């Protein structure tokens, strides 16, 4: 397998086209998968109902039908809107999602760009979506939109910090910021000298994992942290004035980001695309890697969406105090403990 793949060395332009096409195809697909599996099916089961049943086999194509419906709708912009900014905002949010997929490794070589500072890149790019959200809120010429956008900005900045701090523990332990490097470190690691399951960092960085998932939940503006789009308070926040495919892009970006964040959590805490009993350098990972990563992503997404379907919305001040008074101090303590233990052992 390796000689075959090694002989495939396309010119720069061709490899770029292939990468763009792959990311362009993967983003809507993952959003669709998460939407159908969790938003439609798991949520329905948790509420003792069946979910969509009519479109396609067991209603699995319902989201596709909804997407087509969104595309058919008229593209409306309000009279007072700052038209150019209004139309660009969803694309800025989506571009942040697309760029996140660049660094997510599906195996040692199945990665769009294997960056040495992958962790740093991911965290930096994920905060790009705030700009899109603020653009949407400001350009809509709507008070609810602006309120929602300001809430979103406050929330995303507040939860960016615990997210970064939670990840530092993993980086200290792995000694690298490359996402692939973290996977190798976990695969080759050992728990007190026992190499049976490698060393998935969820064992040592459990607090980090908890903080990361909580922060991801807030970054995605999902319940219980969905104040920016709180429909009972500010109608729908920054999405109020968006219709048709522009709203679809917001939806797509939210679920695709959920997938990629679950993927990053899987890479950093659950061992990524590698399974413990198979060496990370094995050629099998060309095929096995994406499947393993997908399974782990579904596991992490299940946790994210389980929390989403269980808890009601927090209050705005509770949201802020949860980040500043609880998560950030906890993350700092976690970093100190990790650093001390790293030096000691």
């Amino acid at each position, binding site marked *: 397998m390796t000689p075959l793949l090694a002989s495939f060395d396309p010119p720069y332009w061709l490899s770029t086209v292939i990468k763009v096409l792959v990311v362009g195809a993967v983003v809507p697909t993952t959003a669709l998968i998460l939407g159908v599996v969790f938003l439609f099916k*798991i949520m*329905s*089961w*948790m*509420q*003792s*109902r*069946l979910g969509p*049943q009519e479109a396609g086999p067991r209603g699995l194509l319902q989201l596709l039908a909804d997407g087509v419906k969104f595309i058919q709708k008229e593209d409306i912009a309000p009279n007072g809107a700052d038209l150019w900014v209004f139309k660009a905002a969803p694309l800025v949010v989506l571009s942040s999602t697309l760029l996140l997929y660049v660094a997510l490794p599906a195996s040692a070589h199945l990665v769009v760009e294997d960056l040495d500072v992958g962790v740093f890149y991911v965290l930096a790019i994920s905060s790009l979506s705030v700009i899109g959200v603020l653009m949407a809120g400001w350009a809509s010429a709507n008070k609810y939109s602006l309120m929602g956008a300001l809430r979103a900005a406050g929330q995303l900045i507040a939860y960016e910090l615990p997210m970064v701090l939670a990840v530092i523990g993993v980086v200290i332990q792995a000694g690298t910021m490359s996402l692939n490097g973290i996977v190798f470190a976990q695969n080759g690691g050992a728990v007190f000298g026992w190499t049976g399951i490698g060393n998935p960092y969820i064992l040592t960085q459990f607090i980090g994992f908890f903080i990361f998932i909580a922060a991801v939940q807030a970054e995605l503006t999902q319940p219980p942290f969905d104040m920016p789009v709180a429909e009972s308070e500010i109608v729908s926040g920054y999405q109020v004035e968006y219709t048709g495919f522009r709203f679809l892009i917001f939806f797509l970006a939210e679920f695709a980001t959920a997938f990629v964040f679950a993927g990053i959590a899987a890479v950093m805490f659950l061992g990524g695309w590698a399974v413990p009993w198979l060496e990370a350098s094995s050629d099998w990972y060309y095929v096995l890697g994406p499947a393993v990563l997908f399974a782990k992503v579904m596991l992490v997404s299940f946790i994210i969406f*389980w*929390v989403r*379907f*269980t*808890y009601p919305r927090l209050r705005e001040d509770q949201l802020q105090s949860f980040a500043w008074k609880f998560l950030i101090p906890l993350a700092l303590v976690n970093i100190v403990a990790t650093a001390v233990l790293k030096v000691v052992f």
Partner: protein
Amino acid sequence: MPQVPGLIKGLGVTFGEMVKTLKSGPQTTRYPHEREEPTARARGVIALHEENCTSCMLCARECPDWCIFIEAHKYVAPPRREGGKPRQKNELDRFDIDYSLCMYCGICVEVCPFDALFWTPEHEYSEIRIADLLHDKSRLAQWMETVPEFEAYEAGSEAKLRKVPKD
């Protein structure tokens, strides 16, 4: 952190509900494919027992939505006994209920002094055209077939009524 046990319990509830749904089916029914029988006293549609109606118009006047339309004319009926006086009676010409206006409050059924109106649990009478929701006398009479047998009130309901404060 006193909230933590409650938060974990909440996660347990949703997870348990998911397992229950997958194992023993959901609480819902897939309506057009399978039908759920409504309870006997469900407020589906109002039926008219025409023989009991005296065209007194009480229902039409009490209706908050003004969705009942009654027209009647008087006629002289033959005397009940030999040598008696001929009686004046009301002949019901029109009794329509516009179900596009009706809000199913049931006041007409409550106020009818002659037991001419009844609730029935039948509910599948939607129409393509909104005007077809105006049920005339004969249509309302057809609903009589679906009126369930009167069920006795549950024991002790009179005692409960007395407890209601006056003011």
